[in-house]
C-alpha cells in the first residue's frame, strides 16, 4: 500500500498544481457540509441501499424538451394566447357562436385554428428535434458495476446516484462523476470540456490517492464510501464535498469531479461514482433559455396594433352610435321600418331599448371590423423569420471552408435588427485576429532573427509614409510550405544552419526550452503527422517552432519528454529523453511557467519562459549578458503588435533540488487554504537566478479580410468600438492594422499611465490615488471634448484604458464621456475586463438608444454578447461559449459585412415592408366592410359571404406577403456590399418610420374608398348583364371582394421589385386561387354556400360589366401608390432607388 502511494505521489507531479483551476474551496466552506445547500449524500457503490433510496434523488433521464406529449396542447396553447391579439381572436371566436356575431361561428374559428395550429406545429417540430436528441442521449450505453463482481452495460437513463461506472476512452460521461481512479496508476485522467465551456484543450483531473488504487473488479467489490457534498448548482468550476472512506475524511475539489457533457481523452478508462444525475448535473443546471430579445420593429409593431385597436374601437363606436340612432327611430306608433318588425324583436334590435342594442352592437362591431387586426400577422412574421434564418445559415458567402462552419442564426427573431445596427462593439483577440498564433520572430543571444514584416508593421510603415523596400507582409502562402502556427523565415536558423551561428549553443538551448517547457500533448494523426494539443495557441506555436527548427517533441508520458534533436556535432537526428521532474504551470498571476528536467547527460535543469516583466527581474548576475539587446528587440516586437515571451534557464544542483523537492511534495499533499500560496512561494524560490537565452515573438494574425470589412462597415457609417484586454500600444497598432484608426485621424488618448499617478501608486494610498485618477480622467475628457469641438472637420479616434474607463463611466461623468465617445469615429478601450465590456455595452445601448451589436469569441465576451441588442459569436478557436450565448454565430469576422450589409439590410427591409403591407391589406379589407355598413344602416351585416372573409387572411393574401418577407431584395447582394451607405436606410429606420406606416394605412383607407364607391356605382342600380338582371347583395359582395383581392395582390406586385418565379406564382396564383375558390365553393349546395351559390358561374362570370369594373378598380387603386413611387423615385430617390436606377 505504502509503496503504491509513494509512486502515485511521484507520478502526479505532471499535474501537480494548476493555478488556473484552483478550487475556490476553503476550509470554512467545507465546514458547511450538511447544512442548507450542502445536504447531498451519496452512498458510493450502494445505489440500492435503503438510505440512498430514501433520499430519492432524480434519475438520469434527461429531457430538454419544452413540452411533453401530455402537456403539449395546453402549454403551447397557453403560450399562444399570451399574445393580446390572439386573445382577442379567441374571444371573438367564442362570441361568434352567439347571436351577436355578424357572421357564422365556424368561419372565424377555422382561420384561428389554422393560424394557431401553424404556430403550434412549428413549436412541435422544434420540440420533436430536441426530443430525438434526448432519446439518443438517454439510450447511450455505459458500464455499471452490478454489485456481483462484474460490470454490465446499461442505458444512461437507468443510472442512479451512487452507481459505480466505468467510462472508456473517447466516451462521454453519463452524469457528474466522482473520479475514483483511472487507467493511469496515479489516478490522472484527461478530459475535453468542449461542450461545457468550449475550450478545446485537454484538462487534467486527478483522483484522490486513497481511491486511485480501486482499479479492478476485486477492489471495486469491497469499495464502500459516503460522499457528502453541495446540492446541485450551476457552477462549473466549483465543487465542495467530503469523502468519508475508511473512517477518514477527505476534502473533494473540482479536480475529482468529471462533468456530464465532457469527454474522456488520452486515458484508457476511469472508474467513477455517480453524484449528480440527470437534471441535477451541472451542465443541465447551466442550461437555461437565453434572455429573449425583441426587436425595435416588433416593439413598434405592437404600437401599431394598439393604433389599430383604437381604430377598431372608434369605428365600432361610430357604427354602434349610428345604429342606436337608426334603431331608436324605428320606435313609435307607426313602426317606421315595419318590414323589420320592430314591434317584436330581440334585444339586439330593440328600438325601445336603443342603448342596450347599441352596446350589444358595439360588440358585434368589434367582431365585424376585427379584420383590421391581421390575425395571421404574428405567424406570418414567424414563418418569414425562420425562413430568413435558413437563408442566413445556407449562405455560402458566410461559409468558412477551412473550419467547415457556416453562419448560424441561433435565434430567428432578431433578423431585421441586423439591418439597424448603429454601433458594433468588438472584441479583439480571436475576433479581429485569428487567435491562431504564429511564431514569426525571435531574439536569441542578442541577435534578432526572423525576416519579413507583420501586417501591423506594414500598416505602420504605410502610416508614416515609408517606402517599403522589403517584401510586403510575410505571406506564408506564397512560400508554399505553410506550417500552421509557424511563419518564421530566416535562412540563418532554418535547415540546421543555426549550427553555424556564433552562439549556436545558446540557440540550441533556446529551442530545447521551447521543445520541453510546456504542457502540450503530442498526437499522431492518421497521416503520421504530429499535432499538439496545447492549453493555449501560444504554447502550440512554441512547440511547433521548436519542431520546425529541429527539436521535434514527439512523446510525453508521465515521467518524461522525448525529442528528436539535431545533433550539432554529428549532424544527425538523435532521440533524447528528458526526465520530467516537476511542472510549475502557467497562471495569469505568475505569468510564467517552468519545468524541471534531468537531461540525458543527467544534468538537472530548470527551463522557464514568461512575460518580460517577471522574467527580467529573475535573471542572475551572470545571466544578463544579452539583456539590453533582448529588451530592445522585445520593445520593437510589441510595437509591431507581436506577443513576446522571454526564455531562460537555470542549472540546479542535486542537493538543493532534493531539499526543495521534499518541501514541494509535502506542500502538494497538504490540505488547507494556504496550500496554493505555499506552492507559489516554493515555485518562486526555485525560479531564480535564471540565465537569459532570448525572447520569442508570436503574431496573432489579423483575420482574413478584416481591414476591408471594417472599411465597409465604416462606410456604412456603423460605429465600431473595440474592447480589448490588450495593452494600449498593441491595441493602437492593431487599430491601425485593421483600418480602425486611419492616417488622417487624430487620436485622443485617455490613460492613467501617467507619471504623477504612478508616483502616487508607489505611495500606495488608495483614496488619494482614486481622487487623483478621477481628476485626471475628468480633465482628459474635457480636453478631448474641446479638441473635438475645435476641429469639427477631422475624424477622431478615442483610446481609453480600462482603469480610466472605470472612472469615466462613473455616474457623474458618464454623459460627458459618452458625448466625447459619440463624437469620435472609432473608440478603442484597452485593458478592459469582461465586466467592463458588458458595462460599456450597456452604456452605449442606453446612451445612443440605438441598436448595438457585440461580437466576440471567448468566454470573456459573454457578458457583452448578452447585454447587446444583438450578440454575435465567432465560432473560432476559443470554442463555443461565446457562440452559446450569442444570437448569431459566424466563423470569421469578415462575414459580419455579409451578415449586416446583405442579410441585415434585406431582412430589415423585408420585415418592415411586410408589416406595412400587412396593415395595408387588412385596412383595405376592413374599411370596405365599414363603408358597406354605412349603406346598411350600420346593422352589422358584412358585405361579404362569411367564408370569403375567413379565407382572406389565410388563402388569398398570405402567400405573397410571405414571399415578400422571405425573398424580396431591393438590390442584389453584391450591390449591397458595393454601396454600404444603403445600410443607413435601416439605421435611420427609413422604411419603418411612422410617416411611412401611416402612409400605408392611408393608402389602405384610400384603396377601400376607391374599391367601394367605384364598385357600387358601377355595378348596382341598373341591370348589370344583357339579360336584365340586377346586381344583388351577393353580386356586389363578390365584385368588391374580387376587387380587394386584385388590389392587394397587385399592390404587392407594385411594391416589390424582385420577381422570381416564386413571386409570380404566389401573387398571380393567389388571384387565380380566388377564382378557383369561387368555382368550387359556388358549386357546393346552397345550405352550405348560402349567398355564394353559383354567383360567379351564373351571374358575374358572364357579365362584361363585372370584368370592366374589376379592371377599373384594380388600376385606379394602384395609381396613387404608383404615382407616389414614380415621383419619389425620380425626384426624391432613396438610397436603394439610386442604386437601382444607376444599375438599369
Amino acid at each position, binding site marked *: 500500500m505504502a509503496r503504491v502511494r509513494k509512486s502515485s505521489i511521484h507520478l502526479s507531479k505532471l499535474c501537480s498544481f494548476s493555478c488556473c483551476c484552483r478550487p475556490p474551496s476553503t476550509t470554512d466552506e467545507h465546514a458547511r457540509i450538511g447544512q442548507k445547500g450542502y445536504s447531498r449524500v451519496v452512498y458510493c457503490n450502494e445505489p440500492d441501499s435503503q438510505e440512498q433510496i430514501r433520499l430519492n434523488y432524480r434519475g438520469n433521464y434527461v429531457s430538454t424538451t419544452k413540452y411533453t406529449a401530455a402537456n403539449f396542447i395546453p402549454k403551447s396553447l397557453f403560450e399562444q394566447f399570451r399574445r393580446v391579439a390572439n386573445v382577442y381572436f379567441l374571444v371573438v371566436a367564442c362570441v361568434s357562436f352567439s347571436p351577436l356575431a355578424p357572421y357564422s361561428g365556424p368561419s372565424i374559428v377555422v382561420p384561428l385554428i389554422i393560424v394557431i395550429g401553424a404556430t403550434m406545429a412549428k413549436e412541435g417540430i422544434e420540440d420533436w428535434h430536441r426530443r430525438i436528441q434526448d432519446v439518443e442521449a438517454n439510450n447511450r450505453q455505459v458500464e455499471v458495476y452490478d454489485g456481483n463482481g462484474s460490470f454490465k452495460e446499461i442505458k444512461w437513463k437507468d443510472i442512479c446516484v451512487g452507481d459505480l461506472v466505468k467510462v472508456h476512452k473517447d466516451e462521454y460521461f453519463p452524469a457528474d462523476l466522482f473520479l475514483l481512479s483511472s487507467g493511469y496508476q496515479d489516478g490522472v485522467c484527461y478530459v475535453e470540456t468542449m461542450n461545457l465551456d468550449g475550450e478545446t484543450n485537454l484538462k487534467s483531473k486527478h483522483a484522490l490517492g486513497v481511491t486511485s488504487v480501486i482499479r479492478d473488479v476485486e477492489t471495486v467489490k469491497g469499495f464502500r464510501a459516503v460522499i457528502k457534498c453541495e446540492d446541485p448548482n450551476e457552477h462549473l468550476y466549483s465543487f465542495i464535498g467530503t469523502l468519508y472512506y475508511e473512517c477518514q475524511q477527505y476534502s473533494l475539489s473540482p479536480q475529482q469531479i468529471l462533468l456530464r457533457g465532457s469527454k474522456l481523452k488520452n486515458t484508457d478508462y476511469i472508474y467513477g461514482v455517480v453524484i449528480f444525475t440527470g437534471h441535477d448535473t451541472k451542465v443541465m443546471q447551466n442550461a437555461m433559455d437565453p434572455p429573449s430579445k425583441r426587436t425595435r420593429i416588433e416593439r413598434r409593431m405592437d404600437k401599431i396594433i394598439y393604433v389599430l385597436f383604437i381604430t377598431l374601437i372608434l369605428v365600432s363606436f361610430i357604427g354602434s352610435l349610428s345604429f342606436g340612432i337608426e334603431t331608436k327611430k324605428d320606435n313609435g306608433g307607426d313602426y317606421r321600418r315595419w*318590414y323589420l318588425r320592430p314591434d317584436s324583436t330581440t334585444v339586439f334590435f330593440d328600438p325601445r331599448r336603443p342603448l342596450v342594442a347599441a352596446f350589444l352592437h358595439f360588440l358585434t362591431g368589434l367582431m365585424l371590423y376585427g379584420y383590421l387586426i391581421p390575425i395571421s400577422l404574428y405567424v406570418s412574421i414567424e414563418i418569414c423569420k425562420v425562413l430568413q434564418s435558413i437563408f442566413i445559415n445556407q449562405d455560402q458567402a458566410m461559409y468558412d471552408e477551412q473550419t467547415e462552419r457556416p453562419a448560424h442564426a441561433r435565434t430567428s427573431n432578431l433578423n431585421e435588427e441586423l439591418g439597424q445596427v448603429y454601433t458594433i462593439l468588438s472584441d479583439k483577440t480571436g475576433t479581429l485576429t485569428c487567435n491562431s498564433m504564429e511564431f514569426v520572430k525571435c531574439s536569441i543571444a542578442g541577435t534578432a532573427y526572423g525576416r519579413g514584416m507583420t501586417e501591423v508593421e506594414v500598416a505602420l510603415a504605410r502610416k508614416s509614409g515609408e517606402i517599403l523596400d522589403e517584401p510586403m507582409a510575410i505571406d506564408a502562402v506564397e512560400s508554399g510550405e505553410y506550417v500552421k502556427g509557424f511563419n518564421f523565415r530566416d535562412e540563418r536558423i532554418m535547415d540546421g544552419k543555426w549550427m553555424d551561428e556564433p552562439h549556436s549553443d545558446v540557440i540550441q538551448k533556446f529551442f530545447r526550452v521551447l521543445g520541453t517547457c510546456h504542457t502540450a500533448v503530442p498526437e499522431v494523426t492518421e497521416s503520421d503527422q504530429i499535432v499538439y494539443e496545447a492549453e493555449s495557441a501560444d504554447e502550440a506555436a512554441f512547440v511547433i517552432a521548436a519542431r520546425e527548427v529541429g527539436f521535434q517533441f514527439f512523446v510525453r508520458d508521465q515521467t518524461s519528454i522525448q525529442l528528436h534533436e539535431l545533433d550539432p556535432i554529428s549532424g544527425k537526428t538523435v532521440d533524447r529523453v528528458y526526465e520530467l521532474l516537476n511542472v510549475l504551470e502557467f497562471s495569469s498571476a505568475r505569468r510564467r511557467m517552468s519545468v524541471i528536467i534531468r537531461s540525458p547527460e543527467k544534468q538537472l535543469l530548470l527551463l522557464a519562459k514568461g512575460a518580460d516583466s517577471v522574467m527580467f527581474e529573475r535573471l542572475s548576475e551572470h545571466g544578463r549578458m544579452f539583456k539590453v539587446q533582448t529588451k530592445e528587440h522585445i520593445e520593437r516586437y510589441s510595437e509591431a503588435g507581436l506577443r513576446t515571451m522571454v526564455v531562460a534557464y537555470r542549472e540546479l544542483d542535486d542537493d538543493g533540488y532534493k531539499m526543495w523537492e521534499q518541501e514541494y511534495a509535502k506542500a502538494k499533499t497538504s490540505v488547507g487554504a494556504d496550500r496554493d500560496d505555499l506552492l507559489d512561494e516554493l515555485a518562486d524560490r526555485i525560479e531564480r537566478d535564471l540565465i537569459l537565452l532570448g525572447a520569442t515573438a508570436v503574431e496573432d494574425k489579423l483575420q482574413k479580410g478584416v481591414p476591408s470589412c471594417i472599411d465597409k462597415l465604416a462606410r456604412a457609417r456603423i460605429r465600431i468600438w473595440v474592447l480589448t484586454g490588450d495593452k494600449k500600444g498593441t491595441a493602437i497598432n492593431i487599430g491601425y492594422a485593421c483600418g480602425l484608426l486611419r492616417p488622417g485621424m487624430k487620436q485622443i488618448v485617455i490613460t492613467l499611465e501617467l507619471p504623477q499617478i504612478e508616483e502616487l501608486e508607489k505611495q500606495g494610498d488608495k483614496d488619494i490615488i482614486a481622487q487623483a485618477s478621477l481628476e485626471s480622467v475628468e480633465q482628459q475628457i474635457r480636453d478631448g471634448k474641446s479638441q473635438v469641438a475645435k476641429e469639427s472637420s477631422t475624424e477622431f479616434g478615442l483610446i481609453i484604458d480600462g482603469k480610466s474607463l472605470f472612472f469615466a463611466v462613473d455616474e457623474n461623468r458618464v454623459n460627458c464621456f459618452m458625448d466625447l465617445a459619440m463624437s469620435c469615429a472609432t473608440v478603442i478601450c484597452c485593458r478592459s475586463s469582461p465586466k467592463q465590456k458588458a458595462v460599456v455595452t450597456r452604456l452605449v445601448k442606453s446612451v445612443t438608444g440605438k441598436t448595438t451589436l457585440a461580437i466576440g469569441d471567448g468566454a470573456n465576451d459573454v457578458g457583452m454578447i448578452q447585454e447587446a441588442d444583438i450578440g454575435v459569436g465567432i465560432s473560432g478557436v476559443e470554442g463555443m461559449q461565446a457562440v452559446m450565448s450569442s444570437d448569431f454565430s459566424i466563423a470569421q469576422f469578415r462575414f459580419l459585412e455579409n451578415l449586416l450589409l446583405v442579410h441585415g439590410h434585406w431582412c430589415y427591409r423585408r420585415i418592415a415592408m411586410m408589416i406595412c403591407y400587412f396593415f395595408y391589406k387588412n385596412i383595405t379589407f376592413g374599411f370596405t366592410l365599414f363603408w358597406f355598413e354605412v349603406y346598411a344602416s350600420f346593422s352589422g351585416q358584412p358585405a361579404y359571404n362569411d367564408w370569403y372573409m375567413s379565407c382572406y387572411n389565410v388563402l388569398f393574401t398570405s402567400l405573397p406577403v410571405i414571399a415578400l418577407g422571405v425573398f424580396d431584395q431591393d438590390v442584389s447582394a453584391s450591390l449591397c456590399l458595393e454601396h454600404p451607405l444603403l445600410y443607413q436606410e435601416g439605421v435611420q429606420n427609413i422604411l419603418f418610420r411612422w410617416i411611412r406606416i401611416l402612409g400605408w394605412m392611408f393608402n389602405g383607407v384610400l384603396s377601400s374608398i376607391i374599391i367601394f364607391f367605384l364598385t357600387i356605382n358601377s355595378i348596382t342600380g341598373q341591370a348589370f348583364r344583357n339579360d336584365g338582371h340586377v346586381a344583388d*347583395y351577393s353580386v356586389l359582395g363578390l365584385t368588391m371582394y374580387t376587387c380587394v383581392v386584385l388590389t392587394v395582390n397587385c399592390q404587392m406586385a407594385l411594391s416589390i421589385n424582385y*420577381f422570381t418565379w416564386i413571386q409570380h406564382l404566389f401573387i398571380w396564383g393567389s388571384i387565380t386561387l380566388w377564382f378557383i375558390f369561387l368555382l368550387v365553393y359556388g358549386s357546393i349546395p*346552397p345550405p352550405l354556400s348560402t349567398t355564394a351559390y353559383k354567383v360567379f358561374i351564373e351571374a358575374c362570370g358572364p357579365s362584361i360589366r363585372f370584368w370592366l369594373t374589376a379592371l377599373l378598380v384594380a388600376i385606379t387603386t394602384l395609381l396613387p401608390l404608383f*404615382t407616389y413611387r414614380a415621383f419619389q423615385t425620380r425626384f426624391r430617390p432613396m438610397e436603394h432607388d439610386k442604386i437601382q436606377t444607376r444599375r438599369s
Partner: protein
Amino acid sequence: MSETNSDRQRRGDRESAFYLFTQQRLPACKPVLTPPWVITIYFLVGFIFVPVGLFTLRASHSVVEIEERYDIECVPSQFRNDKVSYIQDDSVPKNCSLLFKVDKYMKAPIYIYYQLENYYQNHRRYVRSRSDQQLLHGRNFHGTSYCQPLESSNNRPIVPCGLIAWSLFNDTFTFIRGKALLKVNRTNIAWKSDRDHKFGKNVYPFNFQNGTWIGGGKLNPRIPLSNQEDLIVWMRISALPSFRKLYGRIEEDLDVGDYVVVQLMNDYNTYSFGGKKKLVLSTSNWLGGKNDFLGLAYVFVGSSSLTVAIVFMLLHLRSQR
C-alpha cells in the same frame, strides 16, 4: 455524415436551381421605375382607358330608360298629408295609373323594374330572417329560429317563413299601349339557380300571411315556391338601400311617340319610412342597363393618367437640364 453530403452537394451543383434558391440568386426580373417606364405605363393606361371609357359611355347611351316615380302621385290628394294612413286603410282603393311617353325607339325585350329607395333589405335582422332549408325542403324542416317573429302563426309553421317573405313587394302593374294590353312576360325573371336549387319544387306556401299583421303580398298556395318568381326575386336581397328588382319583360318594341299607360295597384307601404317607389322601363345591351358612371370613370382615370404622364415628363425634362 450529413456534412460530407452537403459538401458534395456544395461542390456538385453550384449552378442548380436549388443552390441558386438557397443563395437567393434565382434568376429574377427586377423592374425599376425609370422615367421611360413610368411615362410608358401612364400613357398605356391612358390610351387604353380613354377609348374603353368612351366605348362604354356609348354603350350606356344606347340604352333607353324611362323612369317614373309614382309613390306620391298615386296617393289621392286628400291623403297627401298622411300617406301612412292611406296605405294602411284597406277601404281606400289603391289603383292608380301612370303615363309613360317613349322618346326613343325601344327594342324588345324591354325590362320592367320596380325601384325602391331607403329600403334596407341589407339590414342584418332582415337578411337573416329566412330559412334556406325550409325554402328547399318545406315545412318539415324545423330549424327555422332565424325566422322569428315570423316563424309560425297559430302554432303552425309559416312557409315561407321570415321577414323577407313576409314583406313581399305587392304592387302590380299592367301596361296598355294605345288600346291594347301590352303583353308582359313574367317568367324567367329570377335566377335560374334559385329556381332550380334554392326553392323547392314541392314546397307550397302554407299558413302564409295569416297572422294579425299582414306585411306584404300574399302567395298562391297552389303554386310551388320554385315557380313563385316574384318571391324568388324579392328574396334575392338587394345590396344597397336603393335598388331595382325585375318585374317582367315587354316583348314588343316600343316606338318613338308611343304612350304607355300603366295601371297599378299601389299596395306596398313605403310611406312609413319615407321610401320612394319608381317604375322603370329599360332596354339592355351587352353592358347591361344605363349607367354612365363606369364610362365616365374610365375616361376620368385614363385622362388623368395622361395628364400625370405629361406633368411627369415635363418635370423630368426640366430637372434633367
